[in-house]
């Protein structure tokens, strides 16, 4: 009996410790309950790596030029973060297959770009989760996107923060800072960047 109780206690402690560790940081709903009447701001900083057009194209599953439209923001499954989905309407595919697996014949799944961060009201409290390294896309704006598959079919994330707002022929990085890491891309006119991406795409097809 004593042995059973000891084992049971040990198991209980183990489970308790495990559960506690998985909630080392307050979840967003917990934080919202603790900040009634306030506002919550949290976020993540990542280490973006210096890259050329070829580096970004070489690591991406899909490169396209398109317009983004915000769909929704939502909590992650562990409720520690907020993600935001954007629908991407491609105007030009440069590398990879734009058409995702079709749910029904004759239709194509939309391309969804999922980014870290977003704003939600949780329990009456405004919660802002920021990707301190990357600016969120602007709905309605045109981007050159370097995408990596992420999550369900048709869903993508940015590859190494590879998103550049298109302003005529100029490309502007979405990095909040450290834009010099993408000097090679930002210093390249759109038409020339497209040529360079198409060379990478051609090599990949061979």
């Amino acid at each position, binding site marked *: 009996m004593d042995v059973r109780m000891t084992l049971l206690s040990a198991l209980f402690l183990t489970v308790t410790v495990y559960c506690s560790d998985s909630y*080392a940081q307050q979840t967003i709903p917990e934080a919202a309950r*603790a900040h009634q009447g306030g506002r919550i701001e949290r976020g993540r900083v990542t*280490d973006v*790596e210096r890259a050329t057009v070829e580096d970004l194209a070489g690591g991406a599953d899909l490169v396209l030029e398109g317009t983004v439209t915000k769909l929704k923001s939502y909590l992650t499954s562990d409720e520690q973060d907020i993600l935001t989905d954007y629908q991407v309407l491609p105007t030009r595919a440069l590398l990879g297959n734009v058409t995702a697996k079709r749910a029904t014949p004759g239709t194509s799944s939309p391309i969804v770009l999922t980014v*870290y961060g977003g704003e939600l009201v949780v329990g009456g409290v405004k919660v802002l989760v920021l990707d301190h390294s990357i600016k969120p896309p602007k709905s309605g704006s045109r981007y050159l996107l370097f995408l990596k598959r992420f999550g369900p079919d048709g869903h993508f994330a940015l590859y190494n923060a590879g998103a550049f707002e298109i302003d005529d022929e100029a490309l502007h990085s979405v990095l909040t800072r*450290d834009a*010099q890491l993408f000097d090679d891309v930002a210093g390249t006119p759109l038409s020339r960047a497209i040529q360079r991406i198409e060379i990478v795409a051609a090599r990949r097809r061979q």
Partner: protein
Amino acid sequence: MASRPSTNAFRRGLLVAGIVGIAALSRTDGAVYCQFGGCVNTASGVTNPPQLNPIIESLDGCTADGVAASSTLQDGAWVRAGKYVTVGASASTSGQCNKFGWHPYPTKCDPMGTELRTILNVDTYEILPSGAQNPSQFQHLKLTNQFGGGTVYLQSIDSSVPGSTNGPFLFWLTAEGVHDFRESVATAPTACSIQPTNHSESHRPVNVMECKPEWFTRQDSQGNPIPGSANYHAPPGPITIIIPAGFEAAEAAARAAAAAWAAALNIVINVNMGGTCSIGSGTCVTMSGDHGTLPTDIGCASFRGAGSTSDGTWNDTGTIRLMSTWQDAHPNRLQHTIAHELGHYFGLWNRVDPSCAGPSTIMNGGAGAPGGGCNSSSVPDPAYPLGPTAADIAALKNGTYGQHNRTICGW
């Protein structure tokens, strides 16, 4: 008999002088104040102390946290080593001394002219990072002769504008560290003995560094910097780092990284095996192995924190997020990664400017800086730091806590 009228006149004079003197006592600034047998000069329009405003400008343009700014450096500005700054001064005095002379018949105090309260000198000298004084001292005031009539003293100067003064003066900032520019102004003596005759010595520190400092500044929801806002930073401490279950193999690396930061910032950092951070505690940092599971989890680690919206102090647990493959890493690479992420916790941003050579900062090139990948088992380049460098310590100690206006020039 002949002397009687004059005695009477003398007595009347004393009486009048006494009445005038008493009346003068009740008057305000600038009044004639006569005493028996003499007059007292009086000052008027005096504003104390004399004004002094050091004007330090960069010749290389400035940005303050990414926001365009003028080239005038704020207190505690940062300038790249090997650059020049100009040091000028605007100084002013005000007021004058109204002089009076005793006039016996009729008995009165006659105005004898005025004497402006003028600047005698404005001096600048520099204390170098070594603590030694730059042997060169500079005097801003250039006294002029007008129409051959002698030296003309001024009531105000602005030596940041070349022309009528000796300044501004050029300083070449070679040594890394704090260059303290000290300035003083003294007024010329007046017949009224106007006090004080000088402004307390002004100290204007300029931080000189080779590697561009970058702080973890706050942004709005669109990722744009919030000018003038406090940057994110750790509370004063003591800090606790929790090594959760499953991360025991990271203990040595975490302890070494924590010890390096504790020594650098002269704070207490406790490293605890197991347990949890108290909810809502910004003094606690834990670890997770989920980097790579969220969109755009770039590189091999990230830092997640929650900051106060008012002053940028973390107000909830910070998390060093490692990749699931972290156990493959050489111990020095893991220490480098943890020290780098702690750098974010303490208030530093990545320092990727070309002015930052790899070994000059723990914040260069992301968490995988030593080359070959952060989770590689190979021995990293020993030149790369495993903890904060002098450049990191200076950027935090001289720039983060309690000093939120920063100007960066010359990069």
